[in-house]
């Protein structure tokens, strides 16, 4: 039994402001770009103007001669090693030596007295290019196997090609009353964090390197730097500066980080770099454009008999997380609904564009869009209400999916009921409303998402998250953890968890975010893993500390340790408030008894991945679920869409801090509206069409609807005090719910995002002329299918509630 269950919570469940809220709003927070060090130089990168070209020669003489320039480097000044976030895709160079594969690839770097001089010097670097044909779409890349963007992969310009089959899909379709085949397209989009990437490197006089960077994965950056710079990891320190928004865009090791390290080594000065917004568009790693074909069998009552999904991902110029992204377009969909038979084929294609990677929802919004819009179409054909239809087929708790994922708790049914009720769905659905050209409609969709990836990026048997807690005689507690707070509030959440267990105020907990020399490793702020994994580690460390304090206090008060509780800043006998010591005094007693009070906590996910190849993908300790309803209106004359209300219910397991969870849900809705209605990372004549915040359209506060957030708690046995993720899942229903609401409003199907006014008018025109009233992909790329790996469907098998977790045995005992 965990601490919180012995008595009511005191911190958990409270809508507390984030610990860093004051610093953020007053401008006290020091981001990487706010750092100023003595003698600091400023760096700039020279980036490729070509989408695909060979580098014949680089002459830096004119740049080096410019007054104020300290150093100019090219790839020749770095060890010749390629890197990449995934061990299977080591295909990047910090400064390209022979070939560039996209506009924006870095080829040289300058350190100078100020940014202006560095920029001017970059323009004085002469590069002799030999342009190559650029492949700007998946179709082009597949049609031109003779032009290879990379030499590795599963085929010419095919980075990854996977095929998995769980059960007999043909038999499943034969059993169905209705089989639908639909194609969808999901346009790429970028993260658009407020803070542009920045880094400061200091190669000290002692020969050791420190890098401060706005990164979501300091641990992976640490490992990469050791490899790329060929220096011992023991002499490299990576500190995650406060991150002004990440959303997945700061998850890779980047050229600018490596360049400033090398420039600092050469100049003997600290070197800073801050990317421009345009450069952030080139760094990218955002949402993959995905083309999809989905075939699903339904019974008359709306049961799914089986589903076959094919996805084609436009990966851009490098691997990045692409192998994971490819799997994620297939493996997570089955978690939400009963889907006894499942087949998935996915291919990621290289193109000469900025690399795609993990953006909030990583690989899952695209297939979720396809599935949820298809279900909407099926519901109409079957004469079923789209909400009722889904409500009947939600997955059973503690069972496995066809593709061997273990679903523990699921609150999806409750999520559906709650949004249906709160929005008066049936009423809105039944009564189409219009005012002049404005037609109103409502749409529905659901989703599921992982709470942390079950496996690390590199294979290892160590913890995924670690925490060290040290109690100070003042009564303060220092919490050291390798996690990075990217705005999601992980520092605060860790403080709440430790405070809850120790019975102190969150303000008394000092969280030291990622600093690779001080903090135990956490793998990074991705895949919605931090609250669960670091949280479990923090609870373990806090319980260990509390155990030591109980021992000392018990001796002093002459009671058994089991009689003690930690609450309200005191440790004492549960029912006797007189018999209690202030926390600080308990620490003194504890330190006198045990010596320094420092305790570790470790967490690694339960090992229950299936053994087939690819079986680890999508495995997570538990899954979050969401249901969303969108009410909008469509102007039939202009095609403009106004979103009025969004009701969203999210199964978060337990809301450790409902205020933060609501913030995550609202942010997700915001991002979802952007992807559904306007965001697109598109290219023209080999260049990014809109690399600025003015021209890349992302919604403003004025486009935001009223959001009605409902939190559903299922108290998952895998999560810290029952918590699951909240940062990504609630994004997923928004895009399909909007598409479905558009159909309800004006009767046209826009089977792709963004759903722009132009597409609405085209579909309406088409419908008026007797056509189907649909805008969406018409063609699928040519790529020979791959023989699938056939695995037995695990659908419906009972799954263990809590299996043995590495490093957590003592807690469970």
């Amino acid at each position, binding site marked *: 039994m965990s601490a919180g269950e012995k008595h009511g919570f005191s911190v958990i469940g409270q809508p507390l402001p984030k610990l860093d809220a004051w610093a953020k709003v007053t401008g006290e927070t020091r981001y990487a770009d706010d750092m100023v060090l003595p003698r600091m130089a400023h760096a700039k990168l020279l*980036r490729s*103007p*070509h989408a695909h070209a060979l580098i014949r020669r680089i002459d830096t003489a004119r740049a080096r001669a410019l007054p104020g320039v300290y150093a100019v480097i090219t790839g020749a000044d770095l060890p010749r090693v390629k890197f990449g976030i995934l061990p299977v895709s080591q295909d990047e160079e910090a400064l390209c030596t022979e070939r560039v594969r996209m*506009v924006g690839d870095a080829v040289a770097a300058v350190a100078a007295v100020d*940014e*202006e001089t560095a*920029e001017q010097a970059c323009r004085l670097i002469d590069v002799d290019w030999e342009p190559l044909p650029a492949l700007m779409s998946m179709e082009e890349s597949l049609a031109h196997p003779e032009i290879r963007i990379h030499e590795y992969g599963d085929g010419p310009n095919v980075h990854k090609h996977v095929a998995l089959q769980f059960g007999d899909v043909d038999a499943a379709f034969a059993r169905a009353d209705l089989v639908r085949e639909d194609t969808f397209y999901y346009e790429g989009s970028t993260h658009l964090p407020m803070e*542009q990437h920045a880094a400061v490197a200091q190669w000290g006089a002692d020969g050791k390197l420190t890098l401060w960077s706005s990164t979501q994965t300091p641990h992976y950056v640490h490992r990469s730097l050791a490899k790329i710079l060929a220096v011992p990891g023991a002499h490299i320190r990576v500190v995650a500066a406060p991150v002004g928004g990440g959303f997945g865009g700061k998850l890779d090791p980047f050229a600018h980080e490596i360049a400033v390290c090398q420039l600092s080594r050469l100049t003997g000065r600290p070197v800073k770099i*801050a990317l*421009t917004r*345009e450069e952030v568009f080139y760094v990218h790693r955002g949402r993959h454009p995905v083309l999809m074909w989905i075939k699903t069998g339904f019974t008359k009552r709306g049961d799914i008999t089986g589903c076959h999904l094919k996805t084609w991902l436009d990966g851009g110029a490098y691997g990045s997380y692409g192998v994971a992204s490819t799997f994620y377009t297939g493996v997570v969909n089955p978690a939400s609904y009963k889907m006894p038979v499942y087949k998935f084929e996915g291919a990621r294609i290289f193109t000469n564009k900025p690399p795609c990677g993990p953006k909030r929802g990583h690989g899952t919004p695209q297939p979720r869009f396809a599935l949820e819009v298809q279900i909407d179409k099926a519901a109409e054909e079957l004469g079923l209400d789209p909400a009722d239809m889904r409500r009947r087929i939600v997955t059973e708790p503690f069972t496995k999916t066809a593709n061997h994922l273990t679903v523990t708790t699921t609150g999806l049914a409750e999520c559906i009921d709650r949004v249906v009720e709160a929005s*008066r769905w049936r*009423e*809105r659905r039944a009564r189409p*409303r*219009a*005012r*002049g*050209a*404005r037609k*109103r409609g409502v749409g529905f969709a659901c989703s599921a998402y992982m709470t942390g990836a079950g496996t690390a990026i590199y294979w290892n048997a160590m913890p995924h998250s670690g925490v060290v807690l040290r109690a100070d005689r003042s009564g303060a507690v220092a919490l050291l953890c390798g996690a990075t707070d990217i705005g999601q509030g992980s520092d605060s959440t860790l403080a709440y968890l430790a405070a809850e267990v120790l019975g102190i105020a969150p303000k008394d907990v000092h969280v030291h975010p990622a600093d690779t020399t001080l903090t135990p490793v956490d793998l990074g702020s991705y895949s919605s893993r931090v609250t669960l994994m670091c949280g479990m580690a923090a609870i373990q460390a806090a319980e260990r500390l509390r155990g030591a304090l109980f021992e000392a206090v018990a001796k002093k008060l002459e009671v058994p340790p089991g009689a003690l509780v930690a609450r309200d800043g005191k440790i004492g006998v549960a029912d006797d408030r007189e018999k209690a010591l202030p926390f600080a005094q308990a620490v003194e007693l504890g330190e006198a008894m045990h010596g320094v009070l420092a305790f570790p906590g470790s967490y690694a996910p339960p090992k229950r991945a299936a053994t087939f190849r690819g079986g680890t993908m999508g495995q997570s300790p538990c899954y979050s679920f969401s249901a969303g309803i969108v*009410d909008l*209106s469509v*102007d039939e*004359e*202009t*095609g403009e869409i*106004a979103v*009025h209300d969004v009701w969203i219910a999210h199964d978060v397991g337990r809301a450790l801090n409902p205020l933060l969870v609501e913030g995550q849900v609202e942010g997700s809705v915001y991002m979802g509206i952007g992807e559904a209605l*306007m965001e697109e990372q598109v290219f023209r*004549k*080999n*260049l*990014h*069409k*809109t*690399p*600025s915040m*003015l*021209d890349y*359209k992302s*919604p*403003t*506060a*004025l*486009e935001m609807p009223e959001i009605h957030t409902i939190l559903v708690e299922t108290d998952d046995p895998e999560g810290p005090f029952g918590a699951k993720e909240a940062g990504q899942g609630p994004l997923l229903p928004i895009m399909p719910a909007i598409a479905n609401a558009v159909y309800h409003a004006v009767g046209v199907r826009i089977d792709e995002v963004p759903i*722009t*006014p*132009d597409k609405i*008018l085209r579909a309406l025109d088409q419908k008026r002329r007797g056509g189907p009233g649909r805008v969406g992909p018409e063609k699928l790329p040519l790529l020979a299918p791959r023989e699938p790996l056939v695995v037995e469907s695990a659908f419906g098998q009972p799954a263990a509630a809590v299996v043995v977790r590495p490093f957590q045995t003592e807690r469970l005992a």
Partner: protein
Amino acid sequence: MMRLPPFTYVAARTLAEATAALAEHGHAAMLVAGGTDLYPNMKRRQFEPRVLVGLRGIRELSGVRGSAREGVTLGAGTTLSTVAAHREIATHYPALATAAGLVSSPQLRAMGTIGGNVCVDTRCNYYNQSFEWRRAIGFCMKKDGDTCLVAPGSTRCWAVSSSDTAPALVSLDARVRLVGPGGERTVPIAALYRDDGIEHLAKTREEIVTDILLPPADEWRSTYLKLRRRGSFDFPVLGVAVAARLEGDVVRGARIVLGAVASLPRSAERAEAALIGRRLTPEVIATVADLAAGPSKPLDNTDFTHPYRKKVTRVFVARALRAIGGLDAGGSAVEEVA
């Protein structure tokens, strides 16, 4: 971040000082008022003036004088927020107040001036890009190059007039006063514009726009509709300004001006003519809207597709006419669910 190129700033205190500074530095100098258009453009190296002559310190340039009865004069240095919030303007020249209030964002309206807005640079999404971007794609004729990337083979530049107030002012038959080394002149605002993306202003570099003069309101009704992706920030990709004078319900005077579909604010003259002497019936509105969409010839160099901008021209003209006629404008109000 993107950095400004180096320049010298001359803080003029009188018009005479400003014109003298312009004359002294010739082509090296430019005027700057709120700087909300010019500074971002300088960061992208669309302009590289070595001297900037600042107008902010010139008292005589700001303020609104007069009344709707005798006509209103706006100093060029008046901020857009002042114009948008001005009672007399909002009541009697609603197209102007609306247009000024729809420019960009509240922050930029607090800095940006009406003079800067009527002189604002034309835009094109091949041109409003960083120096590196433009170099990568190949410089266009508007800056540093000699071709047009929107219409290759074209001998002229097709950058788009992107001022919100310009079409509104043309529809209101405003005039502008210019002061230059040779003295001052006052011209109809339509005469300030040229159909050329590069030389889009019919004035010399030394001439300063000092005032914008609105004629007596004289029962003219007006309205302005703006097409853009979002409710703030965005430049117009279509602006429709309509002004009309009705006697009873018969139209006696009409001006329909389209913004952001050409290199200058474009008057839809045939549509205007078709309105005179008519009542604003649905049939008349439909015919006039079709006629007005004729001169709307957008190219693929702004946000949204150009066929879409053309389609919406028709819709917006019809909506503007319905608003002027006091008919249900359609598409504006949204019914609440019971």
